[in-house]
């Protein structure tokens, strides 16, 4: 049981928060730039933009063959699964086109999974998802402030959670995961995960007696154990859903996985840094 030797009190507050803050700012700029150029911070999937997504079970057909079948339709992307299946995404098309596409799919791949979302319905979903994110975040912040009643520790938790979501969203866009209902849910779940380790850290530091560096060390040990068990569960979920072509679970687990690593950084550098500045190291 070797724990990573990470003695937080060896670093100054500035050293601790510099990296997470820099990444947060870069991510905000990146998402802001996306919003200005495309209207959305992260490339929206069919749930929000409208379109058709088709999961084709393992087949002997090559990618070119699959593309050939669908060349008349507004093909957006074709992804190949590890099991020889495909995940094909089309941009929004009118009902008539979709009906004829349905026939084509049914003819070649009768066992495919097909999902279609209309443009207006996508907009409605998008608005609702935005509200959901906003409500969740505000609700979380209220709980945190009620529990700690202290401005600095509370705002530290809220900022780390915010930063978790923002940096994860930016990473999503970079690795090509679209914003869908599933990935929105994952971002919301991240609020829960993020606060989990932050609250552990804050409670240990503020409510326990003892030397600051020891409390920090103990909190880190527990927090790291926690996050690593969660990461192992989510990682397995990702691998199985990837092999098994369960797209919605693959998306959710991919985002959670990214988010958990981002959370490790934000909890143990950003939040721990702010708390070090607030509660003071052992020197004081």
């Amino acid at each position: 049981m070797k724990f990573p030797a990470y003695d937080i009190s060896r670093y100054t507050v500035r050293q601790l928060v510099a990296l997470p803050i820099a990444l947060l700012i870069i991510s905000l700029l990146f998402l802001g730039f996306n919003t200005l150029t495309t209207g959305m911070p992260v490339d929206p999937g069919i749930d929000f933009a409208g379109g058709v997504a088709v999961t084709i079970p393992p087949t002997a057909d090559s990618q070119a063959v699959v593309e050939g079948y669908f060349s008349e339709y507004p093909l957006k992307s074709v992804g190949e699964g590890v099991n020889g299946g495909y995940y094909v995404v089309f941009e929004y098309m009118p009902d008539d086109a979709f009906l004829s596409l349905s026939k084509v799919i049914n003819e070649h791949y009768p066992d495919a999974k097909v999902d279609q979302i209309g443009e207006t319905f996508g907009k409605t979903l998008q608005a609702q998802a935005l509200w959901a994110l906003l409500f969740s975040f505000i609700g979380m912040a209220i709980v945190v402030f009620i529990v700690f009643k202290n401005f600095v520790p509370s705002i530290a938790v809220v900022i780390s959670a915010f930063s978790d979501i923002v940096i994860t969203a930016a990473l999503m866009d970079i690795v090509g995961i679209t914003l869908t209902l599933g990935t929105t849910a994952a971002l919301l779940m991240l609020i829960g995960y993020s606060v989990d380790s932050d609250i552990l850290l804050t409670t240990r530091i503020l409510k326990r007696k003892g030397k600051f560096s020891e409390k920090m060390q103990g909190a880190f040990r527990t927090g790291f154990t926690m996050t690593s068990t969660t990461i192992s569960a989510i990682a397995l979920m990702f691998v199985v859903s990837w092999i098994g072509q369960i797209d919605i679970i693959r998306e959710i687990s991919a985002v959670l996985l990214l988010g958990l690593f981002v959370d490790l950084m934000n909890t143990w550098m950003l939040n721990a840094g702010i708390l070090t500045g607030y509660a003071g190291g052992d020197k004081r």
Partner: protein
Amino acid sequence: MSDDNDGGLLKTLKDWRVAVMLLLVVFSVVSIYVIPPGISNGMTGNLQLGLDLEGGSWIQLSFQSEVVRFDTDENPEVFAARIGEALDAEVFLFEEDRLEIRAPFTREELEPVFAENGGSIVTYENGVSKDTADQIKLILENKVNNLGTKDARINTITGLNGVTQYIRLELAGVDIATAQEIVGAQGKFEIRIQTIGNETEHVLYGDSIKSVSTPTQSPPGSDIWGVGFTLTQEGAAAFREAANTYGATSNPDAHEIMMFLDDETVYSASLNPQLAAELKTAPVRELRATTGAGEEGLEDAKKLEIHLRAGALPVDVEIAGSGTVSASLGEHFKVMSVIAGILALMAVAATVYYWYREPAIVLPMVGTTIAEIIILLGIAVYLQQLDLASIAGLIAVLGTGIDQLVVITDEVIHEGRVPSQNLYMKRFNRALGIIMVAACTTVIAMLPLAVMDLANLRGFAIITIMGVLIGVLITRPAYGKIIMAILSKKPGDHR
């Protein structure tokens, strides 16, 4: 084991926290497998499975109509009638100041019309009133029941303002083409009559059909199937006039009666002699379309009945979204989900073993997590169907569950010493405090998803919330008791 240890174990089992957990595990296993049909359904027992695990199709429909709250000094009914006339659309005043307009108009199009008629628009929303939504739901249920699917769910999605924006159909074991055929497009139904050669003339539209019966045999027991339907007074008059004018009553075979749905022939037959004779003297409102004998005749009759009902929806609908999963792919997802769950559990067990290296801690931890999942599934039998998104929720819960057991464990064996009873309870309560706050935030973060109509994610949110609540209220307190009993027997450094 000495008697003393047995006594301790028994005492732990008798602790109410542990007892409640064990009872709930038994309750859940009984709910899933013992209550019929239970185990006869196979691996998944009584669990309600979503379409993506079972195979089937869903369609979400939106309405080509809007609900307007208006303000006027005039009598609302008179005002509503005038608006209907001005728009040349059907309107329905369902509350004193709320009007349902059954044709697509934008707010900008409506505003001048309201102003001209001495009123103004207060709010404007796409959708229909609850009454209309219920009526549409009933019609769709009829259509779906005729198909004989074993499992169909139809839900209206209504906002807090009482306006229904969507209606969602989930049809197990039905492919999307069939689902679209039944409910998607609202057809234009027409009866035409053959005049000379291939020429036909219009007789009546679907609005002249007052009611449609389910397939029946005529004469009873003959295995000759058909569908009876009733025309309106005007419809019957038009039918009689056409039959007489074009000579169907005198020479039925040369002048078939044809039914069209969206300009495609769905049925054609000649008048039977008895009906032809009756029509010569008076209009007939009760008609019957015979489809044939045996199983095939029955199937055709079912389809014809749906066709006859087409156009009966009071409001035009549009497909907002739809999806389908084949039964074989659903089965594959089911197997993969179980594998994902089991592997995730094993990964978690391996990770905690790596950190603690102490079976006395790892076994209760993993055992408690398994109990938590069994209880969650058991309660889900009554509350929530499981789809792929909720499986992701389940595994996410497994992750947080273990997290919190780690918090409890580390808190109570802090500094490697097993604490006294008093100190133990103090630390345990502090750990529960951390957990409560974390649980609270997760529940709050998930709440919007559970109440909003982002249909695909409800399952994820509800399973996560249920899992967190079960954890905080039942399994984590029980774990605290179990780990205390075990630690007090095995003093030593566990980290």
